[in-house]
């Protein structure tokens, strides 16, 4: 039973560039949430996708956008990267939009220089 997978593992970008991160949910799950985790902090909710639409959004600017595909996989896009965007980006999957339990992937470590 494949768990949540994310790619790439690590990424280094320059300020002003754009980045795309990818996530495949756990088998049987249809909902994907994205989180940003700065060093020494807990994860901060970015947004959630269900049925290919953004359903909930945290306090993040429009530079952060996403997409969900028919196979439930998802992408997180960040435009005009800032140094402060450096963080571990986590994807979590679950079954159903109103679900309680979610399972996290290993994350993508993004460094912006």
């Amino acid at each position: 039973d494949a768990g949540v997978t994310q790619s790439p593992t690590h990424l280094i970008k320059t300020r002003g560039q754009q980045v795309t991160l990818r996530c495949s949910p756990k088998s049987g799950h249809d909902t994907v949430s994205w989180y940003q985790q700065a060093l020494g902090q807990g994860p901060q909710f970015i947004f959630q996708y269900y049925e290919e639409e953004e359903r909930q959004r945290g306090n993040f600017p429009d530079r952060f956008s996403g997409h969900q595909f028919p196979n439930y996989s998802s992408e997180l896009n960040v435009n005009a990267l800032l140094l402060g965007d450096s963080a571990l980006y986590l994807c979590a999957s679950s079954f159903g939009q109103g679900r309680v339990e979610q399972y996290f992937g290993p994350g993508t470590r993004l460094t912006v220089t």
Partner: protein
Amino acid sequence: TQLLEQSPQFLSIQEGENLTVYCNSSSVFSSLQWYRQEPGEGPVLLVTVVTGGEVKKLKRLTFQFGDARKDSSLHITAAQPGDTGLYLCAGERYSSASKIIFGSGTRLSIRP
């Protein structure tokens, strides 16, 4: 404003000792989850509590949800080096059922 406060932030104890970490809020949550995260990895779900006053046990770990659904505790008995990690609590708010709020975590180190 940090909606979920975890304490202590750091804890280093000897193997075999007992410990309790706390997760407190002024907000009411429909459910609360505890995760453990190791360096370079995503959080791993340990338990979900949904009923006020609920107690759940997972081997040497005991989790309790406060009666008013505003706080929770995690108690570890006879800690082992394998318990080392970052422990995160996360609450699901009634007003936004799909939005989970995480605490900043308790970093636990168990010395052999």
